[in-house]
């Protein structure tokens, strides 16, 4: 299996304040990996740097063997990186369907039509609410829409930033099921940032624990299933 994503000594942050101090991550094709850690350790900054919304000031990001560190966010999307931001960030005054259409530019393949039926099969709620303004939906529905939005493109890697935020517990489990299906059916690799232990354990094949802007430990599936072990990295 080839390297899908290889991050080496990544340093980034805002203005003069650096948040990441040399992050190393690598992901093989078809993996689901979690990045865990307490609030403020730099998980979301990592995701933003990977998609290109925050500039890397040092280190490299290689995607499918190509160095994309200097590429703009939209160019990374064209290559197949799909970013599902923290807080869902749906476009509030676009309808559900229009929100989904926004993802079509991700790794656009000429002549290939986006498969809306599949997305509506994953998330039947979105079909019911097709013509509704996205800003009027519940947290869970917005989380689904935010994931569905990148699926209209032909993404290869999904950067999933805290999909459980503001979502009811039973919906979190549904979202976990969908992540597993997306990975299995479509072969999409997933890099998941999470604090919700249930979701982390449900989907992750392995996991990186972050602290102080660096990856401190890499955990195997067996280790992350151990509640006490994983709790160390998450609790305050």
């Amino acid at each position, binding site marked *: 299996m080839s390297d899908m994503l290889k991050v080496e000594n990544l340093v980034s942050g805002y203005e003069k304040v650096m948040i990441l101090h040399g992050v190393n991550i690598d992901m093989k094709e078809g993996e689901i990996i979690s990045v865990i850690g307490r609030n403020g350790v730099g998980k979301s900054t990592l995701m933003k740097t990977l998609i290109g*919304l925050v500039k890397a000031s040092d280190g490299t990001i290689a995607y499918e063997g190509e160095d994309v560190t200097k590429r703009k*966010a939209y160019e990374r999307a064209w290559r197949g990186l799909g*970013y599902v931001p923290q807080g869902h*960030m749906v476009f509030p*005054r676009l309808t559900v369907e229009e929100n989904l259409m*926004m993802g079509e530019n991700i790794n656009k393949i000429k002549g290939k039509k986006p498969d809306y039926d599949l997305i509506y099969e994953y998330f039947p709620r979105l079909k019911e609410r097709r013509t509704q303004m996205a*800003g009027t939906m519940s947290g869970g529905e917005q989380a689904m829409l935010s994931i569905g939005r990148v699926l209209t493109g032909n993404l290869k890697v999904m950067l999933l930033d805290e999909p459980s935020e503001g979502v009811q517990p039973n919906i979190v489990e549904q979202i976990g099921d969908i992540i597993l299906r997306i990975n299995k059916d479509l072969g999409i690799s997933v890099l998941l940032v999470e604090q919700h232990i249930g979701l982390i354990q449900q989907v992750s094949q392995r996991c990186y624990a972050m602290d102080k802007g660096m990856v401190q430990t890499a955990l195997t599936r067996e280790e992350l299933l151990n509640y006490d072990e994983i709790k160390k990295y998450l609790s305050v």
Partner: protein
Amino acid sequence: MFGDIFAYIYQFIDSFAFLVLAALGMAIIYGMMGITNMAQGELIMIGAYVTDIMVCNLGMPLIIGIIIGTVFTGFVGLLMDRLIIKRLYDRPLDSVVATWGLSIALAQLIYIIFGPSMTGVSIPLGSFKVAGRSYSYYRLLLVAIAIVLILITFLVFKYTKFGLHSRATMQNREIANSLGVNANKMNAGTFMLGSALAGLCGGLYLPTMSLTPSYGESFLVQSFVTVLVGGADPLLGTVLAGGGLGIVQSILNMKFNTFYGKIGILLMAILFIRILPNGFSGYFNGVRLKMKLKKEKNRGDK
């Protein structure tokens, strides 16, 4: 009595059309890019000069002149964007100063090249009489054009890919970017479109005003206030603000004179900054969202 009512209505739709045509381009640029283009008046002036040269010097029909003026101004806008505005995308306040400076330079440049005044174009289509007062058909045509333009803009924003991407960019630039929308290209396209609309406005009003290097100034204040009162949603904002300000302006114009009409518009601007800082459209969208959320909640409770 009927004559008076007709005169009011005529004044109102005339003001409305003027405000909409003058402000639409500026509103689209402001809504999309967050840039207040103080040179919008000079873009209007460029549209008028090109139209005037086509009609008076080259003998073309007015409508062809207006089309050439519109396209030419669009490309001037594109050039402005690539050379200057591009560097100011994330600096809204600096962009005000830069475009203001540009507006002065452009007006002076036109003065140096063409001198203080140009041969005018006479107003086409003639006039008609209602209750003893005479009115111009051309001004009614301008009203129709303003309405058609609003409809076209609505359709473009609602049903084209460019429209979808611009609405998304307006709501969340970063996320639109992360989904593969090339922000630079969108910005350039938007600035070009806004400039072309300015050129169109300049050409359309050419027969009704004398053409001097300060032609643009007569539009800037009104379009600026319309955008300010309208808020960030270019279409809804411009229509609501054009309507609201049109009423104020036309009543003051009729009761007193156009000087008071202008004062009235500036007072409205001050009132709006104080009471509804997000403009008409910000207020409206807020109310709309609240109502929808309430409806959703009621449905959920059942």
